[in-house]
């Protein structure tokens, strides 16, 4: 039920246009000669009460899924994960859950850094001897939404 329809996109808010800033300055490249292809972020094992927030699915649907887990699903706590652009949305969802529960729910937020990998494909494929990849970092948030122990 909690399986995302498309696991490829579940944790990948890849619409972040600001990748150029976060890239390490060590790899200097001509933008014409390379095309950048982002690989998916590393997937981690997923429990039933993990919710990965993305920017593609409707906000209300994601909120409803969390509510369903807490109320109908019988979970005492859920984890909401957001990466990059989706951090904002993850926070929004968590806060909405809290307000709608009239203070019964509590939040505990953690942040982390996720290493992402980009492939650089040369326009002229005969040139690059070594496969060009680079790593960049992106921020992520993990919010635990839970009912406090009585």
């Amino acid at each position, binding site marked *: 039920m909690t*399986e995302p*329809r*498309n*696991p*490829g*996109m579940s944790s990948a808010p*890849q619409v972040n*246009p600001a990748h150029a800033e976060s890239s390490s300055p060590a790899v200097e490249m001509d*933008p*014409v000669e390379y095309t950048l*292809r*982002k*690989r*998916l972020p*590393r*997937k*981690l*094992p997923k429990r039933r009460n993990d919710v990965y927030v993305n920017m*593609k699915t409707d906000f209300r649907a994601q909120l409803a899924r969390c509510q369903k887990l807490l109320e109908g699903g019988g979970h005492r706590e859920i984890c909401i994960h957001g990466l990059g652009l989706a951090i904002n949305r993850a926070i929004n969802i968590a806060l909405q859950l809290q307000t709608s529960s009239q203070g019964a729910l509590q939040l505990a937020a953690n942040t982390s850094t996720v290493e992402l*990998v980009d*492939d650089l494909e040369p*326009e*002229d*494929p*005969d*040139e*690059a*001897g070594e*496969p060009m*990849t680079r*790593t960049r970092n992106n921020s992520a948030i993990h919010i635990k939404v839970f009912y406090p122990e009585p």
Partner: protein
Amino acid sequence: MSAAKAKMREKKMRNQPASVQYPSGVNGEGGSQNRGHGSGGHPSSKERKKPEDTGWVRGHQRYGGGYSKEMPKYITGGAFARARAAEVKAMLRAVSQTACSSHVFQALPKHMRRRAMSHNTKRLPRRLRDVADRMREKSLQAGSKKKKEPAKSKSRKARRRHGNLLLDFNRRQRKNIWLETHIWHAKRFHMVKKWGYCLGDRPTYKCYRSCYRAMSSHCLLQDLSYYCCIELKGEEDELLAALSQMTSKEAGPTFAAALCLSGRRQVSVTIYRIGQYPCQPLGPVTVLWRPKTPGIRGRQLWIWAHPTLKQDLLPELQSVCRCWEAVPPSIDPEVLCGKEKSAPHPKPENILEAKLKPGAKRKRSSVDASEPPVKKILGDGTRLPGTTVTWKSSSTGIVINDLTMEIVRYRLIGPQSHSVLTEALEAATVCKEVDKSLGSTFWWPQHCSDESNMLLHQQQADVFHTLKGISSTTELPPGTVLGLTVDDPRLTLPTKKMKVLPCVSQAQEADEDKRKELILRGVPEQCCQSSLWEESVRDDVTENKIPEQALNRMKSEMLVPGSRLSPTPPQGRVPVLLVHQPGKQVGQEMSSWGAGWDLLLPKGWGMAFWIPLVYRGVRVAGLHMGLKHSHSKAAPIFPHDFPDCPAGIRFQEEQEAEFLDKFKRHPPAKRTNYIKHGCLAPFRCPWQQLAEEWEHLTRGGGDEPAEMSVAKPLSLFIVLRNRKSLRLLSGWCRPTTSTGRRLNRELLPLSQSAVTSFLSAHGMSLVWVRLSLLSKGRPELHSMVCVPTAEDLKLLGKHQDLQEPPHRDHFKSRIKPQKKSLKSDDPEPRSTPDSDLIFGLWPDPLPSVTSHCSRVTLGWTTQGDFSLCAGHGEALGFVSVPGLLNTLLKQAGEHRGTLLLRNPGSLHYRFAKVNVEV
């Protein structure tokens, strides 16, 4: 009077006296019949003179000629009695004698007839039984005489005996080759005969969604062994010089792509006829170079192509490499025993068997030694032993080798395919010293004796071990190649089918580093080497495979049942190649969906790897799911989506014939009337006509400097594959947002001048697009892609129906008289020329395809379905480049790239968003 009628009449009249006459159509004929067949009775001379006086006349005669007006004055007693006697005799004979076609029970009145009387004579009354029996015997004899004596088939037991079964299998795959997994598939799949192979289309059980789930979250397995492999050997410079004539850098990577050349990656290349780019493409192939080997000077590469492409590709390769000298296949004993295992060779497994079962009856081995030995065909069995498969060139030194069916290729699709592989396969165990001293003839002990080989094997095994810790196949660099030698996977077969789950444990630091290295850098170059490249090793492995039976016997003799066989038998090592398949690489959405691994094996080992893979919980799919896989990846499939390639043209013709045949099988009243739906060509796509019409339209509308383009004769259409142009087009298709932000800064803005210059280069082009529907609807094959009018765009998002007004079928009236004329036999001059009219289809030549409907047509789709991964209908197809650009120019910023889609059997238009993906 027809011949059948005359025959009937003759039969009726046979036993009649001459005086009886039946009315007939022609008056004179009745008389002649009377005379001709009056042999039953003996009419008197008087009657013969005036038969109308005394003859019996049945029925009413037209001229009243039957009944004579005046009664005869007197009758001669003798003659009269004689005539009557003859009649009675004839009557009696007619009653007693059955005509040949009537059954005995027809003599019975209806209430005495019983069911199945002709089958069981005991149901007849006893007085009729003898006659019925005689009749039955006669008919049986006649039947058996008519039919050919059927060949007396052997008993089922004899037929199922192993040798006879193999003979039968070999006979049955003479026309269409079987893959090694054929029997497994034939039990579970709907098989189709395609491209000279018997292939599984789709399973007989329902599994559409579960296959999709397997693809997107676990692993889906497909047998791709029908792909043809062509091997090229030679100096690197010579090879590159030759092959570079067939590719172009503009259309993507070539044979010379550095990463590919080192052997670390597999790339996909579009091949053109020599020096013809951008016209006359042949099709896509995947290219795999063998990494540089220290001992060998030349290079080796494999070109994997679709079987329909091979017949075009092979002559082209021969001419480009100037490889005309056919090398006769060596008829040395090695090849012979590869084809048909000859008995005199002391085969290791034979020795093994003999050792294990000394008292066992091996009838065939002793008795049938003189007979031609039966061997299951491995590899391409249809090829005659003398067929040339190797060509070499004296000038360039290149050798082309056709390796069709020599290498088994399995494709695993899905994020967990690496876990399945790491679970099913195990890096080969190193041979002990003891084996070496025996001086065995197998390749692995010899291979083990070299220190450097062992070092390499250790590295490869390490990489393979690291693969286990990766959480998803998509994390790896696309196209990675890993060579490996593995143990016989049958040894570690689990007792029960299980489902492999990823094991992402919190590994040690060292493992973490290795994993990072693998993800970032890919497999190191030396690890891409595999013994699978060497023919001698392949042959050795294929020949010395332990048969299933012997292996099972060895397993059964283990002390602890179910434990792993140890030590591993010396012939149980197989060289394999693992090739990573990148998932969806184009476009912004769903990136890396459908990534997986390809597993290359030497021939003969197909089933030995297939069952262990299946036991690891993969789903198995056929051709149908393969289509859906590439549909979701938005990738064109060969030969479906290559209308400019020769194989694609052939495919379209076949497809049209097939659809037309299916269409004609329906009665006209139950057919879709495509004329009324305004669909000109529901079964094919007239691409050439479309390209030409758009070329005319843009030239007329744009008022360009026309003198140059007029002088140029209209050429064949081409599919746009130039990366740069595609990228430009892709940017233009996207709607501009209100902020005016563009993803690519250096992109030209869409303007009239930019379009003009673009079109001067690509006037007759089509472009591959993905159309995602904005609302509901499920696009089908050959749906029309149309341009919305300005009014249509206002309705966008308002849930209002857009409909094509129904067309009138003008041909219907021309079909009808044609039918009537057939009946009434008077040829109408008006209806004769339309003899090839089919109800519901436009006859050739088609009118203008672009402006036939109320919305201008841009192109057609070649794949279309509800996409489970996108959640709405998606179609893939081609549109005309000039048409698309003109449409985009006219559309305002936020609506840019919105087109209409209409199914061939429907009048509804649906809005769709067009994407050109690079």
